[in-house]
């Protein structure tokens, strides 16, 4: 009997293990892969408060930050038209984002584009009676509405940046159509690639904390293509194009600088240590880049200019953007220094080389600055901060893939707009200035 009992024990043990299996298994739930509904107590009020503030800061970057930055640099006869472009794009992209943009960018679908589950924000929930609220899988401690708004401000500023490349010569109606198509066919897909966990670049491990590729390389590539397609302004290279008011430009640059804390630190989607680090490295890289640009200008031209200082600061802001959640102070210093010199060359030597009339140096600063930042993220990313290893090759793939896609798609969209309605104002309207010819308004 004892032998029989001994023979039964392994079998009994196996049976017991089988029965107990589910109790012993790891019961950690899988990470959500799509927006989902949760209870109100899961929302972190500190994170939410910070994200609400960040959203406002980033919107200020476009209106009035970018509006002033650009308007101050164009000729007097185009100031109103230039400012109106930023304002109009804000309104336009807001509606498009809510209708379909957010869904295409931030819902799972394919590695290339999101789905339609959030068209017109269907499924976004806030029900106080039932204690339910929807959150995004990419930021589950804040209401989904807050993430929608925050990402909207990024979707707004990216096309607004492009406007600097075709300043002083694009027809207003053509601009509206181009920006509408661009934000849905270029911005939304690239945002999906990089920031939606299922996107092909995100899955590859591409690190872009706040939009070096999604915003700056994207806008820079589109900008240079616009500059080529629209052609040079009449008198370019023969007449001086005097900036209307560089004090406007400085005011705009300062608003961009401060607003960028929302842009970078806000991309932590939490009020935490990473946000604090992102804010610190943003400030450091910006100041370093501004000083480096000024030093470069001093050495080459024996003077320091306000426009140079502002441009250097913006170059630093652009370059630190993809790296801001992943690098420490040493990385910030290095990125800022390289950006200051690199973007100076981008706006001067490279501009001459390319031969396009990129009116406000969108490619030279945002395109080149974005490339510098995206690639140097692969060099300076600190795993203790980022939580993951960066790969230089992956960063290069992300940067060049975005550059190529944005350039090609922008060209296609411009061709469609050109053939259907024309891109450029006529010579008369350009002489008169866009303020008067397009909008019937004038600065006396």
């Amino acid at each position, binding site marked *: 009997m004892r032998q029989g009992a001994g023979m039964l024990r392994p079998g009994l043990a196996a049976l017991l293990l089988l029965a107990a299996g589910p109790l012993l298994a790891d019961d950690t739930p899988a990470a959500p892969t799509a927006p989902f509904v949760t209870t109100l107590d899961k929302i972190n009020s500190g994170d939410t408060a910070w994200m609400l503030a960040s959203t406002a800061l980033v919107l200020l970057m476009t209106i009035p930050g970018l509006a002033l930055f650009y308007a101050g640099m164009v000729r007097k006869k185009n100031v109103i038209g230039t400012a109106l472009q930023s304002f109009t794009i804000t309104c336009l992209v807001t509606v498009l984002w809510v209708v379909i943009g957010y869904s295409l960018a931030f819902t799972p679908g394919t590695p290339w584009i999101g789905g339609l589950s959030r068209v017109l924000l269907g499924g976004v929930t806030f029900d106080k009676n039932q204690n339910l609220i929807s959150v995004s899988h990419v930021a589950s401690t804040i209401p989904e509405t807050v993430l929608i708004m925050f990402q909207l401000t990024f979707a707004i500023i990216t096309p607004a940046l492009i406007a600097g490349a075709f300043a002083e010569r694009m027809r207003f109606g053509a601009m509206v159509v181009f920006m509408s198509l661009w934000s849905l066919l270029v911005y939304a897909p690239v945002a999906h690639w990089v920031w939606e966990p299922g996107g092909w670049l995100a899955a590859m491990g591409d690190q872009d904390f706040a939009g070096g590729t999604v915003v700056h390389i994207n806008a820079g590539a589109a900008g240079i293509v616009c500059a080529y397609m629209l052609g040079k302004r009449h008198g370019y290279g023969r007449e*001086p194009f*005097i900036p209307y008011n560089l004090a406007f430009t400085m005011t705009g640059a300062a608003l961009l600088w401060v607003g960028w804390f929302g842009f970078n630190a806000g991309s932590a989607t939490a009020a935490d240590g990473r946000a604090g680090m992102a804010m610190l490295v943003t400030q450091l890289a910006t100041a370093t880049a501004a000083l480096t640009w000024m030093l470069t200008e001093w050495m080459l031209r024996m003077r320091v200019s306000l426009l140079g200082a502002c441009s250097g600061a913006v170059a630093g802001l652009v370059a630190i953007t993809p790296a801001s959640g992943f690098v420490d102070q040493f990385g910030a210093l290095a990125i800022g220094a390289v950006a200051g010199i690199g973007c100076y060359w981008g*706006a001067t030597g490279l501009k*001459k080389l390319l031969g396009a009339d990129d*009116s*406000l*140096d969108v490619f030279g600063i945002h395109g080149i600055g974005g490339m510098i930042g995206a690639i140097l993220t692969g060099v300076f990313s600190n795993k203790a901060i980022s939580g993951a290893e960066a790969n230089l090759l992956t960063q290069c793939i992300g940067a060049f893939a975005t550059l190529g896609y944005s350039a090609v798609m922008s060209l296609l969209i411009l061709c469609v707009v050109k053939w259907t309605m024309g891109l450029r104002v006529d010579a008369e309207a350009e*002489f008169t200035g866009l303020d008067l010819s397009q909008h019937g308004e004038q600065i006396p």
Partner: protein
Amino acid sequence: MTQVERFSLATHLYVRLRRSSGRVVDAMWMAQNDEYAREILRLAASDPDPETQNLVQRFQALLGGRPAPRKPAPAAARPASVEPDVAQHYIGTLR
């Protein structure tokens, strides 16, 4: 610089004439062709606007081969003229 000045004056006259009388002139041709420029100046001379008259006089001086007279800026009305070396910096580049 005379050609540059002619073009600049021609575009200013274009704006003035269009605003005051609705007349549209070819500013580029005016900067290149003396005969056309003289005819436009003859028409513009009948415009009572003092700024138009100033532009006409300056353009006529250029057609005469003399440097255009500089009108002193009235107090608080027109923005100060840009220094030549500042203006030079903004030809073909912004930064």
